[in-house]
């Protein structure tokens, strides 16, 4: 399996999108740093503020979109280059190939998230603060990246299942992410519709935010009393997202296995 994952990375060589995205992750904190320097982020300051903004507002959008595009690249690669027959006759099973590709998504998610952390440290430095609680921030980064990568898998099912063009997959990912994101930050608190309640309890981003909010919303802020009833402990969030991820994983492996080589 390790060999397969290594090979998946080799196949990404000269695919400039991937390195470009990691680079973008490093630049992404600039606007947030500017916001923090302008002093418009409530009670948090410096590094804490930049990091908090990135993890709760930046990554939930960027990570699923980036990973959706990378997933399309990975899952269309064999189809487009007609190499599936070479893999099948080695033999490597389609289930293993699909698993390796999903593992690559998790690894890239982690790299992306850690790149974000590093650049927010630079941003924090510019905002003039000291690095506090680095250990905790690494932990939050890791958990966030794992949760959000898993949250991307449902859209990967559709990408693999429909097996269409890149553009189509990108649009699909974009809409899924936006919908998920809007529910997380507004929909789930604003709406009392039972259908909306149900959706926001199933979709990953609203669930993840209910853990993140508990980490980042300070008890003295006015939003706290509104959000507090929604807070979830990490284990419930992890369990929910794990179930979503595991079901998606099984579906992806099954659908990918049906593709003709």
């Amino acid at each position, binding site marked *: 399996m390790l*060999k*397969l994952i*290594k*090979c998946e990375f*080799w*196949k990404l*060589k*000269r*695919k400039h999108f991937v390195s470009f995205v990691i680079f973008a992750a490093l630049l992404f904190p600039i606007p947030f740093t500017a916001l923090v320097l302008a002093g418009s982020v409530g009670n948090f300051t410096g590094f804490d503020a930049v990091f908090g903004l990135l993890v709760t507002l930046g990554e939930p959008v960027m990570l699923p979109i980036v990973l959706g595009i990378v997933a399309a690249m990975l899952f269309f*690669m064999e189809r487009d*280059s*007609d*190499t*599936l*027959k*070479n*893999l*099948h*006759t*080695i*033999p*490597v099973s389609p289930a293993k190939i699909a698993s390796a590709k999903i593992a690559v998504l998790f690894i890239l998610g982690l790299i992306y998230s850690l790149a974000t952390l590093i650049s927010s440290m630079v941003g924090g430095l510019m905002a003039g603060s000291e690095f506090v609680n680095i250990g905790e921030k690494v932990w939050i980064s890791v958990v966030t990246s794992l949760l959000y990568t898993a949250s991307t898998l449902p859209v990967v099912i559709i990408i693999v299942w429909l097996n269409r063009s890149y553009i189509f997959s990108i649009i699909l990912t974009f809409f899924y992410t936006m919908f998920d994101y809007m529910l997380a930050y507004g929909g789930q608190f604003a709406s009392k519709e039972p259908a909306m309640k149900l959706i926001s309890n199933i979709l990953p981003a609203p669930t993840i935010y209910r853990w993140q909010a508990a980490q980042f919303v300070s008890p003295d802020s006015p939003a706290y009393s509104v959000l507090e009833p929604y807070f979830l402990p990490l284990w419930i969030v992890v369990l929910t997202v794990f179930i979503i991820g595991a079901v998606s994983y099984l579906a992806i492996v099954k659908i990918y296995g049906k593709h003709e*080589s």
Partner: protein
Amino acid sequence: MDEYMIETRGLTKKYGSQVSVSNLNIHVKKGRIYGLLGRNGAGKTTTMRMLLGLTAPTSGEVKIFGHPMQGNENKILPRIGCLIESPGFYPNLTATENLKIFAELRGINSPKYIRGALELVNLPYRDKKLFSEYSLGMKQRLAIALAVMHEPEVLILDEPINGLDPIGIAEVRSFIRELCDARGKTILISSHILSEISLLADDIGIIDRGVLLEEESLKELEEKNAKFVHFIVSDANKAAQIIGSLFQTKSMRISDNCNLYLYDTSLPTAKINRTLIENGIDIKEAHLCEDTLEDYFMKITGGEGIA
């Protein structure tokens, strides 16, 4: 006891109502080159895909190394090298990088296998050129390199000389021959080019519209090819009647009313000539001929022949 390296029993593939391969029984012997010959769409690729487990047969069985393929893929496939239809490689990687991926997945760690395979097909090792920048013939060579890289005992090559120039064809032919003669590999090769197969193969299977019409050694096939006397005469119909009644023979064929082919070469040609002239038929030419394999193909695949 199983003497065959590759054997199929009643192998059949239907796509919807269309039968692509029908009740195929092929037998590939150890250490020989078997040429599967057929026109476009005859079912060569479909057959090979089924041999490799890439396409599930509708019915029938594939046995390789004497064991059924189904359920033994993990044991059988690593001992086979194959090239199916067009070469498939990652366009953003070089030839060496491409082979490295497949070598890694096959558990080959030493770069000497990659280098050896590339040398065999005359491609440079560690070249900077990307696969997407390769010419058709170079892509085909790389595909052959992939097939032989892990030194398999059996090679299954679907139209390996597609896109190669004449020198490339001769090179590939000689190393395929060598793989078989010097290293004892068993090779199944498909082609729609008759001359290629007759230069290379020891055994030949002729497939047409999914049906195996004939399977025998090249030698037998050549012996079977009829000798005949070809007359060019002023009135072939009349000449045929005269010869037929004189010698009680029916093994003749007429075309264009001036060509007469007489398959019984034991008849006295001089006497035939004299009789025809006496009956007022002009003889422009008469030769003893041997049917080429090509003519034979046209005959058994029903006319239009193989390119």
